[in-house]
Structures are given as structure tokens and as C-alpha cells.
């Protein structure tokens, strides 16, 4: 019941969208909307791991800005002449940085034994501050024309008519689902999230499982960065602001329990779509001002929690 609720909500939204504006359900519009949800969807996949293992990561928005800025600065440095090789190295660097940022979060919460909320609130400030410092308050922009041209299709291109970002969402989600549902590590994540003591008494290294979850979150942030940089080719101190709110909302809307122990990968993807679609419907219809998008998204997370709890009570 709780597992299919987000998909039902998505279907209802699509119907609502049709009545608000028939153009909404056109293939072009839907592909466009889903493409735009890619950043949040991919970040939220990582958040699904962190949250279902009983943690929380508030730093993802700042991490996007930080990793993206360093990636652009690296590409601007021109240390590698060949543009394709440069791009590959920059991508590797982004993944490495994302993993490292996640590792820092993981170690502070597990080895440092600081509440995830506080730990990642701290690193949120740190990553954001470092970004502001790197950009000196302004913007960091990718300079090299040739690099821009080669990199552009990663966000704007499509394969067999399907935009690359949408393919990335589903590939990442498929890997995430395999690991969470099929492997030993995934089983351990759920066990640690549902009862840390039981996991410990069963011989599971709780700290290792949690730390790796944060690293996975960092990697997902890096993948989102790989899509984000070719889109605008630029970052600033305000890049990724409030993305942590959207990612957590997508996870919760998707049916993952915020207290840990239940992770729903495809629910999370669905949650990210819902968020973007709500915004799109508001844009296409004239009912509500689009400036209220943030307020609506905030309301969605509260409603999702209420629905989740009432479904939980019934079972």
C-alpha cells in the first residue's frame, strides 16, 4: 500500500495536469520536465541510502556547488591540452571529490559520533563557504569554447530520442536498486536503519555501512554535477541552494521512512518527478503564482509524512 502510493499520486498529478493545460501531457513537455528533474532525482537516490541507513545529509546542495566549482576551475586551468582527455579527467576528479565530501560527512557522523543533522549542517556551511571563497562572491564560468562544445551533449543531447539526463536517471536508479535490494551491502543498510543494535549484535559493522552510504551520496552528487556543468557552464555561491530540501522531499514522498529501515529507490525517482511536475503545472496553469513553488514543495513534504503515517497505522 505505502509502496504504490507515490505512483498513484504521480498518476493523479498527470491527470490534474491535463485538465489544467492539455499541452502538459505532450511528449515534448513531459520529456522536458523529467530532464529538469534529473539533478534532484540523482541526488535523492543517494539520499535514499543515507536516510534508509538511519542518517541524514543536509550538505548535498552545497556539495553540488563546491564540486562543480572545482571541476570548472580544473577545466579552466588548462593542465591537460587534449579536450577529450581533459573532460574525462575532470569527470573523474568530480567523482573523486564527491566521494571525498561524502566520506568526510560519514566519518564525522560515525567515528566522530555527531548527530547527522548537526554534522551535515556544519559541512553544508563549509562547502558553501568554500564555494563562495573560490568564486570570490561572483561566478565561476567554463572558459574554453571547445570544451563547452564537446561537453554540451551530456545535458542537451539525446539517444534514440531520449534526453541523456533521463537515461542517466534510470541507469543510476537501476544500479542503486540492484545494490539496495540484491546485494549484501544493501541488506545491511536496511538492517542498520531499522535497528542499529540488532545489526551490531549480528556482526555487522554499523559505522562502515553508514560511512559507505554517505560516500554513495557523494558519488550521486558528483553524477548530478556532471549533468549540471554542461547545462549552464557556470556556478556561483547560490548554486544548489535548497536542493537538500528537495532531495529529502523526493525521498520521503517516495515512501522511504525518514527514521530509517525502509528504502524505496523507484519511489524516490517518482518523488523527484512529482516535485518537478507540480512546479510545471503551476507554471502552465494560472491558478497559483509560480513564485509560490517553494511553499508548495514545503507543503508536499508535510503532506507526504502525514500520508505515510496514516498508511503505516493501518497495517
Amino acid at each position, binding site marked *: 500500500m505505502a509502496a504504490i502510493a507515490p505512483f498513484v499520486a504521480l498518476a493523479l498529478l498527470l491527470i490534474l495536469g491535463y485538465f489544467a493545460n492539455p499541452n502538459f501531457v505532450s511528449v515534448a513537455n513531459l520529456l522536458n520536465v523529467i530532464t529538469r528533474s534529473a539533478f534532484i532525482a540523482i541526488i535523492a537516490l543517494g539520499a535514499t541510502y543515507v536516510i534508509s541507513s538511519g542518517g541524514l545529509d543536509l550538505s548535498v546542495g552545497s556539495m553540488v556547488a563546491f564540486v562543480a566549482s572545482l571541476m570548472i576551475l580544473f577545466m579552466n586551468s588548462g593542465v591537460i591540452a587534449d579536450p577529450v582527455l581533459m573532460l574525462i579527467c575532470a569527470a573523474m576528479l568530480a567523482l573523486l571529490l564527491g566521494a571525498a565530501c561524502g566520506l568526510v560527512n560519514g566519518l564525522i557522523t560515525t567515528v566522530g559520533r555527531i548527530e547527522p543533522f548537526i554534522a551535515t549542517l556544519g559541512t553544508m556551511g563549509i562547502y558553501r563557504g568554500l564555494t563562495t571563497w573560490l568564486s570570490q562572491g561572483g561566478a565561476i564560468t567554463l572558459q574554453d569554447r571547445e570544451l563547452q562544445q564537446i561537453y554540451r551533449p551530456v545535458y542537451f543531447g539525446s539517444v534514440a530520442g531520449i534526453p541523456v539526463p533521463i537515461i542517466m536517471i534510470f541507469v543510476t536508479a537501476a544500479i542503486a536498486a540492484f545494490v539496495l535490494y540484491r*546485494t549484501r551491502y544493501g*541488506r545491511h543498510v536496511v538492517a542498520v536503519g531499522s535497528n542499529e543494535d540488532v545489526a551490531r549484535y549480528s556482526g555487522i559493522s554499523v559505522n562502515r555501512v553508514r560511512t559507505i552510504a554517505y560516500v554513495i551520496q557523494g558519488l550521486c552528487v558528483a553524477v548530478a554535477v556532471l549533468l549540471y556543468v554542461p547545462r549552464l557552464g557556470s556556478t556561483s555561491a547560490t548554486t544548489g541552494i535548497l536542493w537538500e530540501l528537495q532531495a529529502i522531499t523526493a525521498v520521503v514522498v517516495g515512501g522511504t521512512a525518514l527514521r530509517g529501515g525502509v528504502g524505496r529507490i523507484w519511489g524516490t525517482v517518482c518523488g523527484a518527478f512529482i516535485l518537478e511536475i507540480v512546479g510545471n503545472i503551476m507554471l502552465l496553469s494560472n491558478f497559483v503564482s509560480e513564485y509560490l513553488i517553494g511553499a508548495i514543495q514545503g507543503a508536499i513534504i508535510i503532506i507526504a509524512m502525514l500520508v505515510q503515517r496514516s498508511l503505516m497505522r493501518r497495517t
Partner: protein
Amino acid sequence: MMAATSQNGPPVLQAKGVSKTFGIVEVLRDIDVSVRSGEVHAIIGENGAGKSTLMKILAGNHLPTRGELAIDGKPVRFSGPVDAEHAGIVLVHQEILLAPDLTVAQNIYLGRELRKGITVDDRAMNDGAARAIRDLGAEIDPKTVVRRLSIAQRQLVQIARVLLVPHRVVIFDEPTASLTPHETEALLKVIKAIRAKGVGVLYISHRLPEVKEIADRVTVLRDGRVVAVHDAAELQPADMARLMVGRDVAKLYPERHGAPARDVVLEVEDFSVPGFARNASFQLRKGEILGFAGLVGAGRTELMEGVVGLRPGHGRIRHHDKAVDFFSVQQSLKAGIVYLSEDRKGKGLLLGKDLRVNLTLASLSRFVKTLQIDRRQEADALDGAIREFDIRTGRKDILAGQLSGGNQQKLLLAKMMMLDPEIVIIDEPTRGIDIGNKEQIYKFIAKLAEEGRSIIVVSSEMPELIGISDRILVMRAGQIVGEVAGDKMTENEIVVLATGANTGEAA
């Protein structure tokens, strides 16, 4: 009996033909129970006999499905516990329900604070609390934070809080479950004092000697029905046990075949767990069942958790004559030593997950093929475990939390046996388990020993330890204070060691 027991006129509180069903499960059928002013009426029965449900109905927490309640002979229908309280029926819960960071007085007056104008009147509440506790024959500073109190003191605070309400009937739900003999003695005095004031007392317990001491009448429940009502004077504890169980208790413990071998598999020397156990030394032989007795809080659980690396400890451990030191439980598991926690629900099983996930959690690597968990193999393992350990479940896809206590324990046993351990440490193997399952678990334990495994059983139930152990070590206040074996394995011998009764000090 003592005091003024039977009086004429209707009982203060009475249940007539009360039945209760949850869904399709009938937990109580046609129960008639009454309590008069100035009597202690004990309700006894095995776990799952329906005692707690009956108490919750009497205290207004549940409505009966059929039948009715009456006060002074007049039918009543409680809309909730508050309603029952207004009628003078109060319940002392089994668990301690106090706010640990508030003071004794703040807890006693929680939700009914005395006020002076718009501020709370701390002085009046402290005085009132001190008086209420003194009435119970104890002395606790009302300004103490509850966190600093012992379990027994907290229980007194809880009783004082309940008695603050004008009351005619007090229901005690297994109040002595976590008390030492000394503390139990003190509590029974309190209950006698309450009785002497003409209050009716309903007393739930399965500790029969204390029932014999305190009760005027005894009602025995079995499988949700009243099987006997007697004056306590007519019953001995052994009779009560037979009525509760419905069969002879003597055959509960399995016969043991063969004596343990001489070879020592585990030797613990001078092992300490800071704050809980000091300088413990013991040996465990192959095929042996070694009992650990002691009062709650004697440090047995903590010692075992220290040995297997679940909490920091230091000392020398030799495993097959090889010095080892387990920094984490992963290491001791790898060495073939498993520990089954006394806290089955909190540390043993994932209650919200299904049986399959629970069964394989500790031994998952056995089920991994090319990165993936083989669910077919897991399902086969579950079938095997259900057969071998006789886990009674209608369906295999239910959650572990939906199993009865006894079946949960069997599942936990099966889970740890998936690791094929050489040494099994079981903490309180039958806590909260009905008699049929107890018997089975004793058989499993005996069988494990016969297979050549070595077992340590930590238990607070002395008959159980005596029934299954080859020898018993007794702990008091963090130290091993003695060993009993052979003819000396008697409750009396153990109690003397566990309480330090001869020296007059209590743990």
C-alpha cells in the same frame, strides 16, 4: 488470613462474563473476577494467559467485547483509563513510565501540578511527594532527579504517583519483575499497608512464593479462561504451578546424555568490564552447559558482552589454548562464538522485517553468489529452520514482530545457528516465553551440547539453570562469587551466593 478479608455486600470491582477478541483471536473468554475491599486478589497465569488484557479491561484501557464490569454491584462502562481513575480504579504499570530528567516530585505531580496563581507551587508538591513516599514506608528526597534512582525506587515513585488519585482498587501488573528479593520484600509490605486501609488490590504475578505470601484469594488463568479460584490458604506454590501449566512441571527439563569432555574450549581470566564486572575468571569445556546465576544487575550480561567484543573490556581470553582478544563482535563471530541477547526485540531481531531477512542477517555472506543474494537459497534455509526449530507460523511472509515470544526466540536461535558456532552464549533464553516453548528451547540447548558445542546460559530463573546446567557460576555485584555443581545446585545455595545473604549485604 490476615486483616479483614471477606466482607458482605457486593465486591468493589467485578467483571462478569468478560470476553475479549482482537481481530479473530479470542484472548479472554467468560471471565468472572471480583475484588473486595481490603483483600489482595492475585491473578496468576503463564505468559499469554490473558492476565495483562484482563487488567487493561479492568483499568479502562480496553472495552470488553462481551460481558460487563460493575462497581459496588452497579454496571459501569469506562470510556478510558481516566474514566476508570475517576471511579477509583488505578493501575500500576509493569514498566516504569516516568520522565527520567524530572524530579521525583515533578513526576508524581506530572499532569496535575499544584499551582499558586499562574506558577507551579514547587514547595507544596515537594512536601506532598515526600509525604506520599513516606506513606509507602520509604525515604526518597523529592528533589532527586528520577534518572539517579534505582529501579526499585523508581517503582515506589510510580506507585506514589498512582496512589495520589483517590482510589478504591489498585491493580499491580507484575510489580516485582525486576526487583531483588530485598526490594520485593519491601514492596509486599507496601501492598499490605494499602490493603490494611480497606483498599482492594489486584495483584498480577507469576512468582508463586510471593503470591502465596501476599494474596487472600487466587484466580488462575490459562488460555484466556478462569481455570480455578481458591483461597490462597488452600494452595501451595506447587499447586498453583500445576494449575497454571495444566500439566506436570517436572518433565520440563530434558535428560542429558553423556558428561562434558575435559578439554577446555574457552578460558577467561581476570576479565573486567568497566562499571559492570571485575576480575572474572572461568573455564568452559567442550559439550558443557555452564549456567550463570545472579540478580538482575549483577553484571552477567555485561561480562558476556565484554567477552565477545560487544563492549569494551580487558583481561585474558584463551580460545583453544590460543590467546585472543575480541575488539569487535565480528571477530568473535569469526572465531565461532555467538551471543544471543536477552533483549530479543531490541537487539536480537528486526521486528519490522520478515523471517527470511532475519534468519540470514548474521550469515549473509553464505547466501551471496556473484554479488547477489540468492533468495531461493534463503527461502530454503528458512524452510529448514522452521522445520528444525519448530517455528510455528501460519505464513512464512509475516514479520518477525508478529511471531509470539517463543517463536521469536526460536527464530533468533536459528539465526545464530546459521553460523554453525562452537560456543553459544544465551542470555535469558526463556524470558517472556510460554511453557511449551520453554520445554522445546531446553531441548534445543541440550541437543547443542550433545553435538559437542559448548553453551553458556545466563538466566535469572534459578529452576531453569538448575534444570539444564552442568554447573553454575554465581555473580554478585560484578564478581563471580562462587560455583555450584552436583548436589549443591539448589535454589537456596544460589540465593545465598547471589545476595550475599550471610554477610547481610545485598547486591
